[in-house]
């Protein structure tokens, strides 16, 4: 009898624990599910009814109604995130290699400089870059805010630390004896690097590039200061759309963005595995 009550207690405990965890997941994921679901509503008499969830009908009507401004913004965001991700890798990978492999004095300070953008709240980065661009503009006559240069600089600034972080994490666990073995067997240091070291750290580079892309692709607080009317990133565009014209077509474009993000994550996951993605550093969203 006692055994039965113990089993029962355990089962009840498990049930409530599972329920509690499901609530967390529902909290976390329901907004995205609702956005995707709502985007499938058909055209209705009043706009209000197009926001019902679960959707009344299955229709792709709102996907045809996405305003051109949002498509442009989405393209700009995509280009910008690609640039930020590439430049982040170009700066971040050498930085990580130099940090881990060299023994220059003041390494702690150097790594603090690389990590600084993570410590500065994004909104502060935004206003700081705006002021910087005003200052440069007053000096040279070229104002960088509202241009691709300004936006790219801001996003490279916030995205690079992620690449430094992921590549450093991999390099620290890299066994340098592998490289030595290659050299002993006659490989030049250059060949050893490109044939042994680089392939090993590539998962870190992919993960860092993904984080950098996502940071840029979902950033509002930096881009809000550096965009100009007609030259806006997607998150900023829909940030303002919320206040001005909240239309069901927003749900359609948001669904496209969710799909893009999922596909990218899936791609990286296929290449390096989710495990590696998490091991090289926690993802930290922006907002």
């Amino acid at each position, binding site marked *: 009898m006692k055994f039965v009550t113990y089993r029962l207690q355990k089962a009840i405990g498990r049930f409530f624990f599972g329920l509690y*965890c499901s609530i*967390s*997941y529902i*909290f*976390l*994921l*329901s907004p*995205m599910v*609702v*956005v995707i679901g709502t985007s499938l509503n058909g055209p209705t008499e009043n706009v209000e009814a197009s*926001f019902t*969830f679960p959707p009344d009908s299955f229709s792709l009507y709102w996907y045809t109604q996405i305003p051109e401004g949002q498509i442009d913004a989405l393209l700009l965001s995509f280009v910008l995130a690609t640039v930020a991700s590439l430049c982040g890798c170009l*700066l971040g990978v050498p*930085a990580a*290699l*130099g940090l881990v492999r*060299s023994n*220059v004095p003041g390494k702690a300070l150097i790594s603090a*400089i*690389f990590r*600084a*953008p993570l*410590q500065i*709240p*994004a*909104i*502060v*980065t*935004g*206003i*700081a*870059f705006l*002021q910087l661009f005003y200052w440069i503009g007053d000096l040279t006559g070229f104002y960088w805010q509202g241009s691709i240069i300004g936006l790219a600089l801001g996003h490279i*600034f916030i995205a690079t630390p992620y690449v430094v972080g992921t590549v450093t994490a991999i390099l620290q666990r890299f066994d*340098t004896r592998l*490289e030595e073995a290659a050299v002993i067997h006659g490989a030049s*240091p250059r060949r050893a690097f490109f044939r042994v070291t680089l392939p090993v750290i590539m998962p870190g580079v992919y993960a860092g590039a993904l984080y950098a892309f*996502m940071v840029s692709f*979902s*950033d*509002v*607080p930096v881009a*809000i200061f550096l965009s100009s009317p007609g030259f806006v990133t997607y998150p900023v565009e*829909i940030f303002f759309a*919320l206040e001005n014209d909240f239309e069901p077509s*927003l*749900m359609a474009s*948001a669904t496209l*963005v*969710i799909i893009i*993000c999922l596909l990218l*994550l899936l791609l990286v996951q296929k290449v390096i595995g*989710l495990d590696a*993605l*998490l091991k090289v550093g*926690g*993802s*930290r969203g*922006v*907002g």
Partner: protein
Amino acid sequence: MWVRWWILLIPPLIVGFTLVAASQFVFLRASFFEDLGLGRVGDELVIENYVQFLTDGFYLKILWVTVKTSALAALSTLILGFPVAYLIARMRSSWSMILLAGIVVSTFITIVIKVYGLIVIFSANGLFNQTMLAIGLFDKPFSVFGNETGVVIGLMHFTLGFGVLLLYSIIQTIPKSLESAAQIHGANRWRVYYRIIFPLSLPGVTAMLLMVFNMCMGAFTSAALLGGGLVFTLPVMIQRIVMMDIKYSMGATIAAVLLVSVIIINLLSIYLLRRLRAAHLVVV
């Protein structure tokens, strides 16, 4: 192997240092100019703006709201996130990867889209309010817009995924065998939580709370969207004062106050994490 690795450090260091130093210098300097409104500033360095911030009840109240909502969001993130992190860390099947993927996906979607979902869920005739009214938990629709509860919910959407991943790595360092040992010696589930998991995860959890608190202090998007122009936190105020009131100096001053407070909390958590890492208690 004899390679001059330090050469690789030079280009990124130049770019990184220039961007950090130049941007921070220019904006910190701007915060010391008197604000004449409409983008015009005085030409003498004064501490007028800081005095105004510290003596004006309006700004101090915003600081208080920021601290309050951030603290609430950090605590709620812990309460909602810890069991999930524990579940994933202790799970042996391949389900743990699927559950982790769910967390990662949520951290990758921009918060603006999540707020869209929240709008639909919490609208007066949306799913949440209809259910709550039907079972009689509320007698009038509950709104998440323009109140502090909403801001806390928004901040949690921003931090929960990150928080769970952090807690997951903390819990992974607590050996399962300790729990089994306690259970073999007759401890029930609650006692295991209370005497094993709680004390062993406490240092890591403290560091996590500080980090999440910090993220919330600097969070702009979720606070701005859910505050709906009625609840102001420091980041929301910075954007408003710069873009609507066009007071660049005052905006820079608020940003400087935010930056300093965030850095102090950061140093605290870095110090704490270093102590923990030395004691092999966390692997983050």
